């Protein structure tokens, strides 16, 4: 039993830190630290820097162009990147569709798509939820009918996907589609890769409660998709979908990010005042910080326990659901306490202050503008990726056998 990092791990941490120190652009640090808007170019800028270093896909095996890092190294990398205020590496390509393509795709799909994910050529989004299929994902209705045309075999796709995060930037979408209506509903689902430039695909924005455009609905009207874009076997997509969700869940434990946010919360609680003293000296508020820090300390170890139990190629098990539930609750609590720390200045809404170029006079402290919006936005974390209630169902069934 040893929870200390090995000398090799420590050396790795120094290497990552050194890299971030020289290669992470200041303009990106400023945006992330300030809670400002990140655009498509910001994410791509960072992804390409990582790619040039050979670190574009920290969680992939080497044979597919990844780093081949151990789970612990990945955790160190994540923690250092978060701590240095690097932009998140978006999960849709790297953590979601890529593992599916690696495990179930054919050689030509692997050869074509994987390099384009790691070098930032393609931007992927997720086509899972539909207006009538949220938690009950297997009830999805978007149809894909196999047709023969003069230019080969195709699926003709009709239907609608929704809650598509950053779909406005994407050129590819991976979709769960219905290829059969007979038998159990789970058995008629297929996993299809769709080029969003194909005629018939329409992306419409959904504005979230913080006023931001982060999610979309995506419409498909007689969209012709070559059968070569089917991953694995027809009607076996539900298996791949669940495999993907396991990968998604480990990503959203977000330990590194929450550690950074906790530090930020403490800084804010020292700067804000209550009765002429730093807010941190207010015992009621301080105890709430302490409580969330306990949760995070425990999650950090639980996360490492799960990671180190997970062999190199082993897919994440149902324990990942525990990480998702705890991780999302902690993220929400941290965002709530940061908003609460502002007191009156939780109220002002200045969306213009979230643009990096804005030179206006801040209302209240210079860190105040994004915090309430962030709190509102982060209610999503217990909903997405399988709501926390669904996660509990998964644990009840898969771990407890209920």
């Amino acid at each position: 039993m040893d929870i200390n990092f090995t000398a090799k791990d420590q050396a790795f941490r120094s290497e990552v830190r050194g890299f971030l120190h020289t290669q992470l652009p200041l303009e990106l640090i400023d945006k992330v630290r300030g809670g400002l808007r990140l655009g498509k170019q910001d994410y791509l800028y960072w992804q390409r820097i990582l790619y040039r270093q050979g670190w574009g896909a920290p969680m992939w095996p080497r044979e597919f162009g990844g780093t081949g890092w151990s789970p612990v190294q990945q955790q160190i990398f994540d923690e250092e990147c978060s701590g240095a205020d690097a932009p998140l590496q978006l999960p849709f390509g790297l953590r979601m569709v890529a593992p599916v393509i690696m495990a179930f795709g054919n050689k030509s799909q692997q050869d074509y798509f994987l390099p384009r994910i790691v070098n930032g050529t393609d931007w992927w989004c997720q086509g899972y939820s539909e207006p009538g299929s949220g938690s009950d994902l297997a009830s999805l209705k978007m149809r894909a009918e196999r047709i023969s045309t003069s230019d080969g075999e195709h699926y003709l796709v009709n239907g609608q996907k929704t809650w598509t995060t950053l779909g406005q930037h994407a050129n590819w979408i991976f979709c769960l589609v219905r290829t059969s209506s007979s038998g159990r509903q789970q058995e008629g689902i297929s996993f299809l890769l769709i080029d969003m430039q194909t005629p018939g695909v329409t992306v419409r924005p959904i504005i979230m409660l913080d006023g931001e455009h982060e999610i979309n609905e995506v419409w498909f009207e007689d969209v012709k998709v070559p059968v070569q874009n089917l991953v694995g076997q027809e009607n076996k997509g539900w298996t791949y979908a669940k495999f993907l969700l396991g990968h998604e869940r480990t990503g959203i434990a977000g330990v590194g990010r929450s550690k950074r946010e906790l530090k930020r919360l403490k800084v804010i609680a020292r700067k804000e005042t209550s009765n002429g003293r730093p807010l941190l000296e207010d015992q009621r508020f301080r105890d709430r910080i302490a409580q969330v820090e306990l949760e995070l300390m425990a999650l950090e170890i639980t996360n490492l326990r799960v990671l180190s139990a997970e062999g190199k190629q082993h897919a994440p098990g149902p324990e990942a659901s525990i990480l998702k539930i705890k991780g999302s609750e902690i993220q929400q609590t941290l965002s709530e306490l940061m908003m609460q720390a502002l007191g009156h200045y939780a109220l002002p809404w200045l969306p213009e202050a979230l643009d990096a170029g804005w030179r206006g006079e801040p209302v209240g402290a210079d860190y105040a503008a994004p915090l309430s919006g962030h709190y509102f936005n982060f209610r999503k974390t217990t909903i997405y990726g399988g709501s926390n209630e669904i996660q509990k169902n998964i644990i009840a069934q898969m771990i407890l056998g209920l």
Partner: protein
Amino acid sequence: MDFNYTEEQLALQDTLRRYLAKDYGFEQRRALAKSAEGYSRTHWRQFADLGILALPFPEEFGGITVDGGNAVDNMLVMEMFGRSLVLEPYLTTVILCGGLIRDAGSQKQKKQILPAIGGGELLMALAHYEAQGRYQPSHVASTAQPDGGGFIINGAKAVVLGGGAAGKLIVSARTSGGTNDSNGISLFIVAHDAPGVTLRSYATQDGARAAEVKLTDVRVAKDALIGTQDAALPLIQRALDYAVAALCAEAVGAMTALNEATLEYIKTRKQFGQPIGRFQTLQHRMVDMLMATEQARSMTILAAVRVDANDPNDPNDANDANVTIARRRAISAAKAYVGQSARSVGQSAVQLHGGMGVVDELNVSHYFKRLTMINATFGDADYHLGCFSDSLLAA
């Protein structure tokens, strides 16, 4: 990074598991709790034969390894004890008192006491907390006046765990300073039958035993002093931290067993024509219990690893204030978190068992009571959350 036990540790765990499964069943344990002494000398001798009573001690004092075992070994033993609700005073004798003598005792004290503990001949108890001081370790109103070559001790000690069975007590008393001062506390070895010592022994809610200890003009010789006069508080804190780490592990063992029992119950108990475990309300509550236990286990691992810092035999480490702060933060974090988890897991287990949760004949209520008492021992969740919270001011 490695979350696995070593081969030796696994072998020890296996031996203990088999012994407890065979000889420490619920009914045997229930009878033991109601017996006069509240524990079994037979079990104690068996523990000595298995080597666990000397587990944390160095080889030269009867232990099985050169340097003695570490807090991870304690964790393993205590988790097994938690699963079986073991009543024997292992925590007080071996971990608290044995640990104090190992870390701070003179060569003579070590030779006299450690092999006796390891061999199962000597039980000990720490008489430290006082009624007015609640959980504050620096609160010591009892006094030890120098007298000739020795000391005269006066005072009263509260809820001394295992006090009635102990052949020797380790008593804290003030040799200088005011009641709450950090400096001025000293530790003494006092025989349970020394003139002036009175013990009022009683059962505790969880079936163990404790005692109120009064000391009236108790005379001890100079060599009864442990470590340096006036400087015992860091020793006491370290010993209590070890005990807290061990209690956390005991709680995790108890929670794990309680979850297993509860899961089995909701899978078999039928109402409305189906097992009650089919109902989502109950499923989610069971999942909460599992998560609380796994998170508590993580904190317990953290506590076990951090408490081994500040090795008094390593001068660099022992005097590093930062290491001490990190150790105390981890311990308070773990005890607070485990205390909260123990409370919610215990309460939920009773609730899911319905009426069966509130009867004496089923093990559920016994686990619940032990978990509740673990929270109240050596600082409850609120106390340790406060310690942790206050440490944020310095950080």
